[in-house]
């Protein structure tokens, strides 16, 4: 909140006076981007969503709000080495509509041409696209690859980062480190209830850009500082002496289910190629956790495309697999309905947290005008047993093994 106040003050001090100062030198710029998209599937047993921050997703009754969004950015040059940026993106995103959608609000100091130091709110630079997942105009696909990006509810953090560029050979090497705190609000299953997380985040990346090639390797660390409120009743139950007397493994399960002070480690590599005609991109990641509700997962995608004038055709393959085995739940010594209910809850929890998803997509991007691109994409998903954590399930009933998702949309910037 203090950054927002800082920004408003800064704009009042500088913005108004410089906005009319000199047409030839833009000190103050308002830009934006957006997507108007519609998507739908061929099932009503499972709802498709862009990422785990969204509800309710789309089914065979199509919807606009999975992909549609509108972003506004204000940039201000305070001096040659100081710059301020704020970006707010209206979208389907669980939680406070203003605060959770404010993705950038930082002050940048550039003491030298190749050194950036930023303080404020910034995008979470965990994978190649994670800082600009909302800016459809900037990438080829209808949305960032689902297997790779849908499981990351973190869009931004409040803190600082430092980036330094080096000329290495004919290319440019970028080294970046960041750290801070991220407050996020996530939906609980298909309900309108919200869980809150306070996360300590830190990370580093090494990127190298040369000619048509772009490569990166990155590591990010996330520590959850507060227990998810909806889990508390369950944890209290598992920790109670009475329950443990009847069901001795209860307490050890509570340690697996508890999310407080648990860490996630994201490791990833990415490689992109673009020679103006052909383009290809791949990323691979491993997310290491010891959380029952967010088990370790390996993900990858590979995309290739070709441009034909203003039209680009592409294909995309994605895969994501949970690696942890689900815990085998022992039975209580005595069958007591309250303890059985507790056991069922844990069973459901561990059954709904896995990802087992593969997909193939074909799509088209047509740059109809400068700054306007029309996109359409067909994706076919294969979903394994207990593998639909990135989707939203109905309260009961079987979930399909395969789902088709169709999307049409227009991306623009201004």
């Amino acid at each position: 909140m203090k950054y927002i106040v800082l920004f408003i003050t800064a704009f009042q001090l500088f913005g108004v006076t410089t906005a009319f100062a000199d047409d030839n030198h833009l000190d103050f710029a308002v830009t934006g981007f957006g997507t108007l998209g519609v998507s739908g599937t061929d099932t009503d047993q499972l709802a498709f969503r862009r990422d785990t921050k969204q509800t309710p997703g789309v089914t065979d009754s199509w919807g606009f709000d999975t992909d549609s969004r509108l972003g506004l950015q204000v940039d201000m040059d305070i001096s040659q080495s100081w710059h301020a940026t704020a970006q707010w993106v209206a979208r389907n995103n669980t939680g406070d509509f203003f605060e959770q959608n404010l993705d950038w609000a930082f002050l940048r100091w550039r003491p030298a041409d190749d050194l950036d130091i930023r303080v404020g709110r910034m995008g979470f630079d965990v994978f190649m696209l994670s800082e600009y997942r909302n800016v459809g105009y900037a990438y080829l696909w209808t949305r960032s690859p689902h297997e790779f990006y849908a499981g990351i509810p973190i869009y931004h953090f409040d803190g600082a980062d430092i980036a330094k560029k080096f000329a290495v050979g004919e290319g440019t090497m970028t080294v970046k480190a960041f750290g801070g705190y991220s407050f996020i609000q996530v939906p609980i299953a298909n309900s309108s209830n919200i869980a809150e997380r306070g996360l300590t985040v830190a990370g580093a990346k090494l990127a190298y850009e040369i000619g048509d090639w772009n490569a990166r390797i990155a590591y990010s660390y996330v520590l959850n500082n507060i227990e998810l409120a909806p889990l508390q009743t369950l944890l209290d139950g598992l920790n109670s002496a009475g329950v443990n007397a009847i069901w001795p493994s209860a307490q050890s399960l509570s340690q697996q289910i508890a999310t407080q002070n648990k860490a996630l480690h994201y490791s990833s590599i990415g490689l992109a190629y673009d020679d103006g005609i052909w383009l290809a991109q791949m990323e691979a990641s491993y997310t290491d956790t010891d959380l029952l509700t967010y088990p370790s997962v390996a993900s990858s995608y590979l995309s290739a495309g070709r441009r034909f004038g203003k039209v680009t055709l592409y294909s995309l393959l994605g895969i994501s697999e949970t690696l942890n085995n689900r815990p085998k739940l022992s039975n209580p010594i005595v069958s007591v309905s309250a303890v059985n209910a507790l056991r069922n809850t844990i069973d459901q929890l561990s059954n709904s947290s896995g990802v087992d998803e593969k997909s193939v997509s074909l799509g088209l991007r047509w740059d109809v005008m400068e700054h306007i691109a029309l996109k359409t994409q067909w994706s076919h998903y294969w979903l394994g047993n207990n593998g639909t954590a990135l989707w939203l399930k109905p309260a009961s009933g079987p979930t399909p093994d395969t789902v088709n998702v169709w999307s049409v949309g227009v991306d623009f910037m201004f």
Partner: protein
Amino acid sequence: MRHFLITLLLVLFMPSAQAELAVIAHIKNNIGVLSAKQVQDIFMGRTRNFPNGRFALPIDQSSPLRAEFYQKLTGRPVEQVNAYWARIMFTGQASPPQQLPDDEAVLQTVRENEGAIGYINQIRVDKTVRVLLLIN
């Protein structure tokens, strides 16, 4: 928006006005000549300095010359250059070069700014500016 529409009309009805382009700088800029890669680095925001360390202020155009300039300089269509800038801008890294409407406005700004670097149709070059690179 009006510029955009005019640009669109020009692109639609006056195609293939292929010109030789001159990358120009202030007459007192003693940098000599630049390579295509050095000009690319400045216009794509990879560096903010000339090779001699002086601050560079790239001046873009909103005219049809813009598409031709980037196609010839980077081998990429202007839509791709725009998508590249969308990524750089909306991740808070840098802002794209400011755009001026035509050769005359670029010439005027380059004459007045020692750090400026712009591009114009080569036939518009006069003695008041220095040519850093010719692009066919």
